[in-house]
């Protein structure tokens, strides 16, 4: 058993972390913090946890947290984590950071995408980018894991198997996502007001979304050459879920068959429990759909080769709060503990939902 803490446990990411960790056989939740709900019982903020935990939200007392916890999940906004994570690391605490503060290896990107000069460039090197399926060894030996962005996760999983191959043009890949409202967090705004939010197909950041550089970073590492991503996002009328539709142009000279692509995906994800290949020719579940994997840690992947134009369409479905955030963090936590990665994460999803 290890003692864990969650800093910023009142938000949606914090809520999922708390739910997963309260039912995790190897974790004892010692500390949960929230500025807004300090002193309140958990159930006032997370109704699904009523009667399950008597914990109260506390303020952020780093030395107390350092003493009581072996692992801390920092579910705080970008720019905040960079000011508390280093201190906890110095106290020997292992950190799973949900913010973007330690995801990007290139410090010059932080002023561009997050409006601050990064104070601890040394930690950027040491942090492991938190996708076990592509960085398992690094995560195993890391003290600091930077859990990935949800949109980035959906793009990376869809493209990782193919970027090593010459058959694809890696310079003009389109990632067109459809995403649920929970990804915008729990603070209300005019755009999240129900009469305005329900039934939208609302483009946001059709260009220049900051997850672009995360996707490019991890895919270039796999491809060992530059990968360029054009990311566009749309809020749709679901609470949880992302479907990334990825359009990849085939390089002219290299004809490729459907079964070659199956082989690439199978090989890359061969013993990965949380990645499923989805394709059918009958019925209504022919391609990945986030509705099917809500609440699970699965990433469902599918693809189809276009015969009209030299294009491969890849579809990647995740739950933005699970494989896109808290589920992935707990999976990395399991890797760091050296235990079965499915621990606490083997919920198969509901049908119907």
């Amino acid at each position, binding site marked *: 058993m290890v003692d864990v803490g969650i800093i910023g446990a009142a938000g949606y990411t914090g809520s999922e972390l708390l739910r997963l960790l309260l039912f995790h056989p190897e974790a004892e939740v010692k500390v949960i913090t929230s500025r807004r709900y300090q002193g309140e019982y958990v159930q006032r903020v997370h109704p699904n946890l009523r009667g399950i935990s008597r914990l109260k939200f506390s303020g952020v007392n780093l030395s107390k947290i350092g003493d009581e916890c072996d692992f801390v999940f920092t579910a705080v906004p970008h720019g905040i984590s960079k000011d508390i994570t280093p201190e906890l690391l110095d106290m020997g605490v292992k950190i799973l950071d949900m913010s973007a503060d330690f995801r990007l290896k290139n410090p010059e990107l932080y002023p561009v995408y997050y409006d601050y000069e990064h104070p601890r460039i040394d930690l950027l090197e040491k942090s492991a980018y938190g996708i076990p399926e592509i960085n398992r060894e690094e995560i195993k030996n890391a003290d600091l894991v930077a859990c990935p962005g949800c949109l980035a996760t959906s793009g990376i999983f869809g493209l990782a198997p193919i970027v090593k191959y010459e058959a694809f043009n890696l310079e003009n890949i389109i990632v067109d996502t459809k995403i649920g409202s929970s990804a915008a967090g729990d603070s209300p705004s005019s755009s999240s007001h129900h009469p305005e939010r329900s039934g939208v197909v609302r483009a946001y950041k059709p260009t220049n979304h900051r997850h672009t550089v995360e996707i490019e970073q991890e895919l270039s590492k796999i491809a060992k050459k530059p990968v360029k991503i054009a990311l566009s996002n749309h809020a749709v009328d679901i609470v949880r879920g992302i479907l990334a539709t990825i359009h990849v142009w085939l390089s002219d000279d290299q004809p490729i068959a459907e079964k070659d692509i*199956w*082989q690439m995906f199978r090989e890359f994800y061969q013993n990965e429990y949380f990645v499923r*290949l989805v394709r059918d020719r009958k019925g209504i579940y022919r391609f990945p759909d986030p509705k099917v994997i809500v609440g699970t840690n699965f990433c469902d992947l599918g693809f189809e080769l276009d015969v009209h134009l030299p294009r491969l369409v890849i579809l990647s479905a995740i739950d933005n709060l699970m494989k896109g955030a808290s589920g992935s963090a707990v999976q990395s936590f399991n890797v760091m503990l050296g235990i079965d990665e499915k621990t606490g994460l083997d919920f198969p999803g509901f049908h119907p939902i």
Partner: protein
Amino acid sequence: MATISCPECAATIEVAEDVMIGEIVDCIDCGQELEIISVDGANIQARIAESEGEDFGE
């Protein structure tokens, strides 16, 4: 159990030992309907079954 390779996605699919020529099996990975075209001991061949293209029920 005998096995065949799906011509569409190269998945390895288990089939009954006594599978017969002309029998239709579904590929478990890609959902393609396959027709058994030759049975020679363990060496069993299948091809994509005739169908009028994917009907999306549109």
